[in-house]
């Protein structure tokens, strides 16, 4: 194989703490251009935090995050905002702006960042809405949308400025099978049709591994395993196996650390 092209996003020796808790303890992640990369791990491993670090909303304590060769962690305000115009992010619940209907939500980034005429914006918005299959819902209020529809509208909004990179924060959580299927297909299609680079943060193994080209498994602030879905299936790590197969007990114990069961039951409350 030829040497791999430079990755679009490079995370090097990333250290991030919240209070005294280490969220990331020196991790390295590469996001390849044009691919869908999944970051997976149990809840509370800071997957969302990683997206915020890449988007420059948080700054790492140590280490480097670069997007397209630019160091996000030390970027000034103006270049950071310029960079963000080329990043799209889908938030967990869509984060549609209340008080604006679907159309205005999708038009929001266009109106903020371009001087396009209203008819042109209208065409663009309808095109984006059509791509997610919600052109007919343009005048609904966010409160009238189901969770899946809200995420699709948010997706249309995220791609309104034709970004180079899309970040999905838990896109499948709390979705019924149909809207989950719709989202899975949309993410793949958009990635290929628009030539995007996608990052998915999720713990829905089946859906994510069905579309991800490359997967990183995170746990306790470290990268436990990485590779394609197939490679991970054969991985020797016991933890990875437990996570991927969803086993109730294993390296991650079923029980929260506690005193010995018998002793706990037999001691009276007064003795404590």
């Amino acid at each position: 194989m030829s040497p791999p092209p430079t990755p679009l996003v490079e995370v090097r020796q990333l250290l991030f703490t919240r209070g005294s808790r280490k969220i990331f303890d020196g991790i390295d992640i590469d996001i390849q251009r044009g691919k869908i990369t999944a970051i997976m791990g149990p809840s509370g491993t800071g997957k969302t935090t990683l997206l915020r670090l890449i988007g420059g909303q948080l700054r790492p304590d140590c280490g480097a995050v670069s997007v397209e060769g630019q160091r996000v962690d030390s970027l000034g305000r103006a270049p950071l905002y310029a960079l963000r115009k080329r990043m799209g992010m889908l938030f967990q619940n869509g984060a549609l702006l209340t008080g604006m209907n679907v159309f205005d939500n999708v038009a929001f980034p266009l109106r903020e960042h371009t001087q396009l005429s209203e008819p042109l914006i209208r065409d663009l918005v309808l095109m984006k809405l059509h791509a997610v299959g919600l052109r007919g819902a343009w005048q609904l209020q966010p409160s009238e949308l189901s969770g899946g529809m809200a995420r699709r509208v948010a997706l249309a909004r995220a791609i309104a400025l034709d970004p180079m990179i899309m970040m999905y924060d838990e896109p499948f959580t709390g979705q019924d099978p149909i809207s989950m299927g719709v989202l899975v297909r949309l993410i793949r299609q958009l990635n290929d049709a628009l030539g995007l680079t996608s990052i998915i943060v999720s713990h829905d193994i089946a859906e994510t591994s069905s579309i991800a080209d490359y997967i990183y498994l995170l746990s306790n602030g470290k990268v436990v395993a990485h590779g394609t879905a197939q490679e991970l299936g054969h991985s020797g790590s016991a933890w990875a196996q437990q996570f991927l197969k969803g086993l109730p007990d294993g390296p991650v114990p079923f029980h929260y650390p506690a005193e010995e069961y018998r002793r706990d039951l037999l001691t009276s409350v007064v003795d404590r």
Partner: protein
Amino acid sequence: MLLAPIQELGRKGLDFFQRLGRGHLLFGHILAGLPALLPRFGLVIQQVFSVGVLSLVIIVVSGLFVGMVLGLQGYNTLVDFGAEESLGVVVALSLVRELGPVVTALLFAGRAGSALTAEIGLMKATEQLSAMEMMAVDPIRRVLAPRFLAGFISMPLLAAIFSAVGVLGGYFVGVGLLGVDQGAYWSQMQAKVDVYNDILNGVTKSFVFGVVVTWIALFEGYDAIPTAEGVSRATTRTVVHSSLAVLGLDFILTALMFGA
């Protein structure tokens, strides 16, 4: 064991100063965002509607009743000295100097301030502010600054409406019900109320209150813990803190303007 309360006190103090610092940073950030609003004044108009127009009913009704009560109470006191002709002066000076700006600010904190905090807090909790940041839109400039300007504009107008309606309320009671001479009501008022000393100072007060209440409301919303509980607590804090701030500042402003 003994040091625990002292440590707690220290922690609270540090918390307080950190919040104060964040509040001032936010204030500076909002002010820096104001010039950019001029070409997009539609945003501000939208907010003047939700901050000012929607507060109108409570302001008008309260102003009317406060004016009527002042008329009644003022009359009962003044009539003992045979000075009921001065009712207009009592009503107008109480309203223009104190009650107009202060009561309006308190009602504004309850009506518009709490709504602002809840709105901003919910936008934070539902990641709308974050989403804006990721769309390269500064939420402080896009969301907070127009609301701040709207509060700054609305408060003096609301206070003026409150005072004007209150003077009319005092007129209804004093002249309409209690038989004070209507010419005396107006002429004594005009002779004793000064545009610069009384009205302008009242308006200045309401500008200051507008800034402070809106600022506290926006800060509490922006600084709220992004959960349902956090937002509800921030809303309560807005009403409590801005009421205290208004009353405390009123004393200071009154001392500066009318004292000494």
